């Protein structure tokens, strides 16, 4: 399968990348390529220009900063979960990064690329031949969303493993563009709109992910249900963070909505409480209502909701066990 033609750039600095992105609308950033190049082969993404940022130095690192962690956007997933600070202090991130795709994808894929990956849908992530049996869906350039049979809307799901882990770790993203750098909460990266799932300016490059010290004082875990556990995208993925001293809990999900979502109502119910089975059941029921899964994959929304509750309970029980609760 040939890749479509494109103009290719290898900027040496983030500023240079910004100016190329500004000059040439329709340009896309290439990092690990494990998401973008596959979509390009399917012709669901056909950027006229690719900007390969991997030659920009000093964007691959994991270091301690102000008691928290700072991770370069070009750090490959393998280096993220293999780093002792991440493995020891940010369990959900290590677990999520090590459950992305196969070992090859973890070797090639970058943290930034994983966070900013495209949303997915059974009508979108298909070959050109498969999609030719009907007019293009809205995300691929047509009119209709076939998941909900409505015009000009898109219900493709965000399926990245790493994002929910970063959400419960209260991470921030550093974006560099023509007007300097800005730092945003991770949740602000996502629009919740399937066709254009990211809220990043044209010329901006994600350069760093930071996790505050306070988050590293808790313990966290990422669990996912997938068709083939070792290599597939999640059917549902859940990250759970807990600080049993403060009785604080955070829960986030992936693959259940158009963006990764925090289960804020379930968190509210749990916060300040000592956990017990009845409370976990109640939280699981509440969490299952905090996203709107649709039939964008082969799995029924009702099954996804059920799994959201199950994953919450098993994850919290695991953390309770680890904390000796």
């Amino acid at each position, binding site marked *: 399968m040939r890749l479509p033609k494109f*103009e290719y750039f290898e900027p040496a600095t983030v500023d240079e990348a910004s100016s190329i992105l500004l000059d040439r609308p329709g340009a896309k950033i290439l990092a690990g390529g*494990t998401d973008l*190049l596959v979509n390009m*082969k399917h012709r669901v993404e056909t950027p006229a220009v690719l900007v*390969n940022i991997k030659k920009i130095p000093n964007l691959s690192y994991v270091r301690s900063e102000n008691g928290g962690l700072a991770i370069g956007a070009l750090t490959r997933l393998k280096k993220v979960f293999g780093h002792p600070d991440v493995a020891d202090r940010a369990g959900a991130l290590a677990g999520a990064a090590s459950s992305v795709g*196969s*070992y*090859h*994808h973890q*070797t090639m894929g970058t943290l930034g690329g994983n966070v900013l990956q495209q949303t997915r849908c059974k009508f979108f992530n298909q070959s050109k031949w498969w999609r030719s049996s009907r007019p293009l869906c809205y995300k691929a350039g047509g009119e209709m969303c076939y998941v909900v049979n409505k015009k000009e809307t898109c219900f493709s799901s965000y399926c990245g493993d790493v994002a929910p882990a970063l959400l419960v770790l209260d991470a921030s993203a550093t974006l560099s563009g023509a007007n300097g750098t800005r730092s945003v909460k991770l949740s602000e990266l996502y629009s919740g709109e399937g066709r254009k799932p990211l809220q990043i300016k044209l010329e901006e490059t994600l350069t760093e992910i930071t996790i505050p010290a306070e988050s590293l004082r808790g313990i966290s875990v990422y669990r996912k249900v997938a068709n083939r556990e070792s290599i597939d995208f999640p059917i549902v993925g859940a990250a759970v963070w807990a600080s049993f001293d403060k009785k604080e809990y955070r829960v986030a999900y992936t693959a259940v909505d158009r963006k990764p979502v925090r289960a804020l109502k379930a968190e509210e119910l749990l916060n300040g409480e000592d956990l017990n089975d009845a409370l976990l059941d109640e939280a699981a029921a509440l969490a299952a209502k905090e996203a709107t899964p649709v039939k964008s994959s082969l799995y029924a929304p009702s099954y996804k909701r059920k799994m959201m509750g199950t994953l919450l309970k098993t994850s919290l029980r695991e953390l309770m066990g680890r904390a000796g609760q």
Partner: protein
Amino acid sequence: MKVGITLNINGDMYEALVGANQTLLEVLRDKFGLMGTKRGCDLGACGACTVLVDGEAHLSCIMLAVDAVDREIVTIEGLGTRTGLHPLQKAFVEKGALQCGFCTPGMIMTAKSALDEDPHPTEEAIKKKMAGNLCRCTGYTKIVEAVMSVAENEEGGV
């Protein structure tokens, strides 16, 4: 537009005029005739196209050839010699870890990368790292046995 690139493959320098949209797999097979690296799904899902880039397993079907400049590439042709098989190749033959053989180059390259990283892995670790290499013949048992036999015998790097 084509660009001239030089690639370091199996310790030799190869020159070619390539389009920016050509993958490393296309260039290895179609420009340099290194047919050992297989084209399976061509979408980064099956692992048949695995090569080592700077010592680590990469999927050459979803990697641009221009991106491989200045990096050390090892393909299955770079393992073993004409007279002596590489220990992993030998183990695959001895344990009967191949039938049609199509997935074998990718399997061996991934196994090499895994053993270079951790010369004495557990069986679980090997299974996890090799999960991205699909085989439709063997049922995997013999493949895991072959890789583990090398891991157990190995003294030093593979």
